[in-house]
């Protein structure tokens, strides 16, 4: 957003104001107050000594468009172990839920002076959502004291009550989660990630309430912790999936997601309300495909047009979080979220005569599939087009990925494809690491202490998508410098000239960059010998995982495949007595292969690094670290050119 320089107001010149300021003059010697942070996961100063959470399904009073509600009551007791402090307490709510009451007690007394604030909550990568936050600072008066927060919430529709997570931002000593399910409410509670936690479950029937009461008790639950490159929370933390099936309400049966058919029907009802205008869309489709022959080429043209011209901008406002915006609106606005982009792609294809469908999908960030129908199982929409009885999946939010290439986040994931009143349940095809190859070929010779020669680099699939994303975020007048900095890894001695590159707007071809290189001071000259470190990039040498603190598996963004070939002419009058022995590492999830070979006066250096599976389990860390150490050691080995 453009901004303009402003600075502080300068002076006020009115007598009264000066007099008032004099009378009220506060003699503060400090300019900035102390900040307050949420303690880190390993902080033992403040703990949750006890937390009770109760969820009860109730029939709403009077006429209500949401006949069944979920009443949530929580009571959290915080305990100060070592020294007094204040912690931020936050509670989220949205369009489908309300916070009805917040009570705060500090050291046994009601804290009337603490006023919670209720504000819009800005979610990263979402332009506007209905997420709101209630927050306040909670003091812990001194060591050994407790502060307590009681919150009452209402969730207005059981469809939106999908999960109950047990972990908290602080360590929990005791927690009890109770779900009161009257017999008129039919649901399934699916226990997730319970294996490594001691969680006790009790189910009793309360005849007075005619309700089943589920009680889960857990002790000594570690705090949630954010680790980079870790699996999504639904893979890690113990929680319950709440699968609301149906309710026998006052006015008869209300079906939620009893089966996947019901969830599909709910989506389909929303889709039926979109109101796409085929005339407008067809006109644009014709423009896009004009002069293009062949179905496949037309599909590519439409897909690429949406990728190119529609900005990703997410609105998650109430039902708009589930209902795609009309194709003509997205077309007009030139922005949309995944649903709007999928719907526009589909409509452009349908009006061009293709069999295109909307698809719902849960990315690999979430641990569920459609065997447990509920709104938590998917978080994304894409489009599928059928060509010669084969579905191709088009995700226009992946701005720079090619046709028939799939991002890691959707590969192998179950996908719910619309099919009239029924649906198809398929899987997005997996893609091997070769989809994402990064290739570098160097033909070099030695001039003085420099390496000079020609370089060609290529990027495919997700590695290309990643780089193009970066390239297009740079202003074009700064692009040559930015690319030079990227390719030279900000090394001023790695001098790049005659830089050329392939079409940066064509995501269906490989991205190719070529340049002439002068790598100054690449060689060290000692006595009669020249010493050279052959690998300039040394990819992955810094990938050692700090196992001491790491709790979760490591997740790579995508499957990596690096190929590097160098042909170096051995300078006349020199020989290489020996080259380092090859490095061969071949594990289930990754492999490293690097070799040297001398062919006549050419030294060949070939490297292939592969991440076959993106999830590296914690159990493999030790082996991984040893292999990275080997890789690092190999990289550091010098080639010695000795005078003949």
């Amino acid at each position, binding site marked *: 957003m453009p901004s303009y320089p402003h600075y502080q107001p300068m002076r006020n010149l009115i007598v009264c104001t000066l007099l008032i300021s004099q009378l009220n003059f506060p003699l503060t010697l400090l300019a900035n107050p102390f900040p307050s942070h949420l303690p880190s996961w390993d902080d033992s100063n403040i703990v949750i000594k006890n937390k009770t959470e109760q969820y009860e399904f109730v029939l709403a009073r009077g006429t209500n468009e949401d006949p069944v509600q979920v009443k949530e009551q929580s009571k959290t007791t915080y305990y100060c172990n070592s020294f007094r402090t204040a912690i931020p307490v936050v509670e989220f709510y949205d369009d489908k839920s309300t916070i009805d009451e917040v009570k705060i007690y500090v050291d046994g007394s009601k804290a009337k002076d603490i006023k919670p604030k209720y504000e819009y909550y800005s979610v990263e990568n979402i332009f506007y959502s209905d997420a709101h936050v209630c927050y306040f600072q909670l003091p812990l008066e001194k060591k050994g004291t407790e502060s307590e927060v009681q919150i009452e919430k209402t969730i207005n529709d059981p469809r939106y009550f999908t999960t109950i997570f047990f972990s908290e931002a602080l360590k929990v000593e005791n927690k009890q989660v109770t779900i009161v399910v009257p017999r008129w409410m039919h649901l399934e509670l699916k226990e997730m990630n319970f294996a490594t936690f001691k969680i006790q479950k009790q189910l009793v029937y309360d005849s007075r309430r005619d309700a089943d009461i589920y009680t889960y008790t857990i002790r000594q639950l570690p705090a949630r912790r954010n680790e980079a490159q870790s699996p999504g929370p639904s893979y890690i933390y113990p929680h319950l999936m709440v699968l609301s099936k149906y309710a026998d309400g006052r006015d008869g049966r209300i079906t939620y997601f009893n089966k996947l058919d019901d969830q599909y029907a709910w989506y389909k009802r929303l889709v039926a309300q979109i109101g796409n205008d085929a005339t407008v869309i067809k006109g644009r489709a014709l423009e896009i495909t004009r002069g293009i022959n062949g179905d496949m080429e037309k599909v590519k043209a439409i897909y690429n047009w949406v990728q190119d011209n529609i*900005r990703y901008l997410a609105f998650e406002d109430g039902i708009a979080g589930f209902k795609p915006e009309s194709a003509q609106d997205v077309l007009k606005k030139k922005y949309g979220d995944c649903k709007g982009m999928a719907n526009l792609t589909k409509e452009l294809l349908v009006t061009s005569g293709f069999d295109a469908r909307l698809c719902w999908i849960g990315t690999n960030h979430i641990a569920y599939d459609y065997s447990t129908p509920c709104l938590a199982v998917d978080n994304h929409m894409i489009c599928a087009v059928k060509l010669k009885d084969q579905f191709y999946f088009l995700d226009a939010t992946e701005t720079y990925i090619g046709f028939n290439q799939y991002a890691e986040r959707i590969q192998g994931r179950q996908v719910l494809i619309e099919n009239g009143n029924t649906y198809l349940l398929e899987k997005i095809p997996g893609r091997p690491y070769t989809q994402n190859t990064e290739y570098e070929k160097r033909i070099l010779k030695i001039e003085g202490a420099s390496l000079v020669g020609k370089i060609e680099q290529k990027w495919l699939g997700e590695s290309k998508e990643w780089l193009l994303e970066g390239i297009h975020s740079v202003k074009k007048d700064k692009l040559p410098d930015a690319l030079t900095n990227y390719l030279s890894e900000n090394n001023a001695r790695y001098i790049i000239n005659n830089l050329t590159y392939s079409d940066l707007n064509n995501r269906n071809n490989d991205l190719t960059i070529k340049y002439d290189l002068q790598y100054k001071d690449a060689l060290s000259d000692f006595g009669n010998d020249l010493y050279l470190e052959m690998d300039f990039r040394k990819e992955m040498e810094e990938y050692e995982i700090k196992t001491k603190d790491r709790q979760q598996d490591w997740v790579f963004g995508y499957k990596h495949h690096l190929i590097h070939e160098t042909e170096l002419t051995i300078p006349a009058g020199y020989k290489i007595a020996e080259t380092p022995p090859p490095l061969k590492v071949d594990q289930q999830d990754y492999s490293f292969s690097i070799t040297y070979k001398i062919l006549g006066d050419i030294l060949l250096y070939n490297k292939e690094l592969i991440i076959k599976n993106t999830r590296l389990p914690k159990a493999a860390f030790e082996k991984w670290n040893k292999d990275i150490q080997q890789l690092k050691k190999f990289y550091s080995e010098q080639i010695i050119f000795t005078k003949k």
Partner: protein
Amino acid sequence: MKFTRYLALIAFTCCFLSAANAQNDNDYKKRAAEVRQEVWGWNIPAFKNRTVPEAFRSESGIILARHHEIKAASRNNEGTAHKNVYYSNTVRELVKINDKATLEEYSEFGFQKFKKLNSVFSKKANSITILGVRIYKADGSIKEVNADDAVLIKDEKNDKQGKLAITDLQVGDMIDYFIREEEEKDYSHPIDPELFLFGDDKPILHYSIHCEFGKKYALEYRAMNGAPEFKVKKDSQEDNILDAEMENIPSLPVSLWMSAYKQIPILRLNLIVGYKGMFAGAINSRNPGEVYRNQSTDEIIDDIRVEMQTSVTGMYYKGVPLYYKEVKSLLKQYNKKNDDIPKDSLPYYVYYALRYLTFYRVGPKDPIIVGTDRNYQTPNNHNFLFLLNLILREFDIPCDIVLATSLYGPDSKQVMSRNDFEFMLKTQEGKPVFMSAEGVFTNCNYISSEYEGQRVPVIYIKSIRMMTGRLITENSEVDLPKTKALQNKHLEILKVGFGNDLQQMNIDRKTVLTGHMRSGEQKSLLLFEDYYDEERKALGVKESFMEEFADSRRNRSLSDEYKAAFAKAREESKQQFVNEIKDQFDNEPKDLKLFRVDNMGLRHTNPDFIYTTQFAIDGWIKKAGNNYIFEIGKLIGSQLELKPDQRNRKVDVYMPFPRTYEYTIEVDIPAGYKVEGLDKLVQNKSNGSGSFVATAQQTGNTIHIKVSKIYNNTIEPVSHWPKLVEIIDAANDYLAQKILLKKGA
């Protein structure tokens, strides 16, 4: 002509009447429609020329036209004797979008749609912001974005914040947008000063400014660094009309070592409600309708004197008695144990005492903050120094109030506001002692780098007439001392040995930071527990707060709590040292065996910040057959490297301060190896702007290395840039140097 102007004024007044009530959504929409009609109707040729000159085709974005319009009028506030201010500020731009990066920049707008202003005299003090956006498509069509579609991310009665996503915006389009801010408020609200910056990260082909200010307003302006002057005229109503314009403004130069206030064309404008009442002289107001161009520094100093009068007298009643008593009490405790402080040392004691009372002293009701967060506190500079000045007066130590100007702001001859000055104190008698209020560790007689070396005004409060609050003052000037490169030193003393496999090194390191080099590391590495205790003892305070708490039945448990908090802070400080080593060497230490602060540098008498670290590091030794290549240059740590676009510099250089980096390194040669290539470690680049000098020699089994990199000056003319590049490149060359550890000594 007269008739047109009359109509314009009517329209102007009406628009403000509507704006004042626009918190209602319908009123807002109505007002927004009127404003859009008005702004799109502006007859400014630059907005009609939508051809991008060939020379700019490769730019990411081009601002073809920017127009800034400010209007202010006043009228009586109904039912009161006070006047209301009506103010509007509009910026309109026409921008050609040539790539996705610029598209992204203009694809969303956030704005304060409505805000109720705090007001003493007016119930309807409001501010609204109105947007208008049009897109010129490549095919010549015009699309108007419905800016009323903005979503509200804050929707409270008195505070509404909006966010607008721009529809149908594509690469190749031009966006023509404006942001209009309208305010109605009473006179007690100052109007923000304006700063027109003739530069952006894109070229600007035409930049125009138009202002219309009612005759009740006084204006001050100053054009700096080649900015255009305002053309000022009066209309028939005696209102002031100001216009300025500039064409073909290139995109801003490099970001490294710049001082925008001294290098970029800037036009500054202050709009002040003129005042002619009975107190006009006392409050130093400006005359209504008068235009003041390039005011003298004396006038701004006079404003400061008047403001000082208010705060000083207020402080006399509130702060001085309390703090003077406390300082005296501390001094009494000190003098009991020590010889009485000589008078020339008294300013130092008083300074450190007030610093202690502000930052160090702990009361039972204070929050427990003992980690490095505490070190980043800053004082209310104005209050701290004025209070200090008055306390020093009580001790019979007269001080001048120094009005220092920043290296990064206008110099003292170009100031336009008291905010352009930073306060300091200077003792009048004997060798001057300067006092500034920067932070927790600022020494007495320390002048921050951005203020040093300048000739600046001073005010001396000769007397204070308590009955009337009047200050009798004298003005003069002073040259602020300037440090030399050797006074601002980062010294690294390293002893390097090898582990068993030669691939890992053990480093025993002592770091000495002097002068301006200290404050960053002091903040990140010092612990409250340590500096509290050292300073308490230095001031002669008998009992620590821990002891006081332990002795008090009421607060006894607090002592235990502090102990726990201290222990936690100490544990966390290890990571701070790890981070510091990583920053210095661009390499994470493997094993931090020792980290210790040797001298905290809390006082002018012992000012250096000194710490010791012992750690292992790897990655700099490479196997070469039976031998090893040792990237020994990396021991000097990461060095500033110039990016390609920074090399070809066309503007003068404003560095932070003259400085020295010095490295004294001893490397134990591993047994069984001999060293080759020491000659590569000898360099000697020296020019008027600085130097890079390195020597290396072997004595027995030890390599002795000395390296120094010096920047002699703060400001260098652009003609000296090649000299600085020579120094910077030499350091980077050194960083890449290697030696050979050859088997078989």
